[in-house]
């Protein structure tokens, strides 16, 4: 398949863009693969790509029960950043952010990474101190971070209500200039196309329904498209981690919770950075099409429904309006929900499982979009070498039983509080 280029774009313009070939094949599943990835979200597709590219393992299939990117990858609010405090998280998310920075070129697919900066607002002295502490820690780790005053903030984001009368008065913010957004669907499509070009089979409408395990080793998957043999299996099914792992008799430190988001009708450019208010759990940005994207808090009860309830939408609208009063006349265009794999310490679970040949990549909570490239990179390394990559070794399943939890928020084993 030929690479995309400006010249090809021009050439296809002459035929009204009607002759573009499909971006990835639609193969029938083979009887056996060296590696089978369950879940065609960003993490599964990235894993397959790096398996082929970095490790030369190309007899690989990605099985997706619906369409690729139809899970949380296509439902998130697209924010990428690396502002984490815990050392393991800091190292991992910064590695991932560095991969984002070169990803469009690497994939030959414009995933529209926009490093427009991300802001974490401080509404009181306590938040200001803890964000300062975070910023200092980031800078010690060599990651860009900056505390900015209310005056600077109101110059940077003129439509943010920084007045004394604001419903939630703002003291200032922590800014990571390299934070920003990326086009979520394009991430799935870009990885899929690039993996396909290296020989990976991407098989959609293929639900894994059972696992065949012989002498504590996974040997095959029973799917809605028949039995597929596998040397190694990597699960990357986000909110569905628990019931897929249960097919192998495993119980996970994960509870599935719902998270909603929404977009307004499109408007002219008014907001050129990402604004997050941790205290309200509101996060707002504007897409390149002009829509205002608003993300909310969890529903706070376990749910696989993939749709939320109205009270949370009302809350997030109120909070966004308190921050940006000028949005009051905007009409909402769409709302949706995604099922999040919330862990007991808020950090992901990647690595081996007690079943030989079966590996897990999950527990991304509501922050795993930014992790996509780093996770794929490290999970591929893990599958290729059959042992955890150094970067993700701290995210083992065992950590909960050895006292090595990585609790960024310090809430303890309360998944809905992470």
């Amino acid at each position, binding site marked *: 398949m030929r690479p995309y280029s400006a010249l090809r774009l021009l050439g296809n313009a002459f035929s009204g863009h009607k002759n573009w070939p499909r971006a990835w094949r639609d193969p029938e599943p083979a009887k056996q693969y060296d590696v089978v990835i369950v879940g065609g979200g960003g993490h599964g597709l990235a894993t397959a790509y790096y398996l082929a590219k970095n490790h030369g393992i190309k007899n690989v299939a990605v099985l997706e029960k619906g369409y690729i990117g139809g899970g949380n990858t296509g439902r998130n609010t697209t924010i990428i950043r690396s502002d984490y405090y815990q050392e393991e998280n800091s190292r991992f998310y910064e590695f991932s952010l560095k991969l984002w920075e070169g990803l469009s070129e690497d994939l030959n697919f414009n995933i529209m990474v926009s490093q427009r900066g991300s802001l974490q607002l401080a509404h009181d002295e306590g938040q200001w101190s803890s964000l300062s502490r975070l910023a200092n820690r980031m800078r010690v780790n060599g990651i860009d971070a900056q505390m900015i005053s209310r005056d600077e903030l109101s110059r940077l984001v003129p439509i943010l209500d920084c007045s004394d009368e604001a419903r939630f008065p703002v003291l200032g913010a922590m800014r990571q200039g390299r934070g920003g957004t990326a086009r979520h669907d394009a991430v799935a499509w870009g990885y899929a196309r690039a993996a396909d070009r290296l020989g990976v089979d991407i098989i959609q409408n293929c639900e894994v329904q059972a696992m065949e395990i012989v002498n504590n080793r996974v040997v095959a998957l029973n799917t809605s498209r028949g039995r597929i043999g596998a040397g190694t299996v990597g699960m990357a099914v986000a909110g569905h981690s*628990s*019931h897929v792992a*249960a097919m192998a008799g495993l*119980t*996970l*430190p*994960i*509870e*599935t919770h719902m998270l909603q988001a929404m977009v307004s009708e499109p408007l002219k450019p008014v907001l050129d950075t990402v604004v997050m208010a941790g205290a309200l759990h509101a996060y707002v940005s504007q897409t390149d099409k002009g829509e205002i994207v608003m993300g909310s808090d969890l529903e*706070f*009860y*376990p*749910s*696989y*429904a993939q749709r939320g*309830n*109205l*009270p949370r939408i009302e809350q997030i609208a109120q909070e966004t309006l308190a921050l940006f009063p000028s949005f009051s006349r905007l009409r909402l265009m769409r709302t949706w929900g995604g099922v999040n794999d919330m862990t*007991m310490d808020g950090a992901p679970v990647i690595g081996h499982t007690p079943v030989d040949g079966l590996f897990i990549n999950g527990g991304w909570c509501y922050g795993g979009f930014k992790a996509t490239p780093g996770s794929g990179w490290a999970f591929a390394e893990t599958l290729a070498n059959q042992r955890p990559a150094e970067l993700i070794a701290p995210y083992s399943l065992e950590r*909960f*039983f050895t006292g090595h939890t990585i609790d960024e928020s310090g809430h303890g*084993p*309360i*998944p*809905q509080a992470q």
Partner: protein
Amino acid sequence: MQLFNCPWCGPRAHIEFTYIRDHQSVSTRGNGDDPDVQQELDRIYLRSNHLGPHQEIWQHSAGCRGWLRITRNNLTHEVEDCLPCQHGDAP
């Protein structure tokens, strides 16, 4: 919106209630004096998280503040049961 029938207050919208935790992570609590460490770790950190009906501990936090044991389907949001917590159930 889910409707929970609080045994003390009657049917109320779910936003009056706070989800506390999976009932299983409370009911399997071991003997306080001589706990089995492995079993306690499993109880604290692992969840069956299966699709379908679950027993859960909720609190009617914006109502009578009573502890409730609610049986709720996490896929359809249907509520099968809403009972007061029994001795040993409380979080």
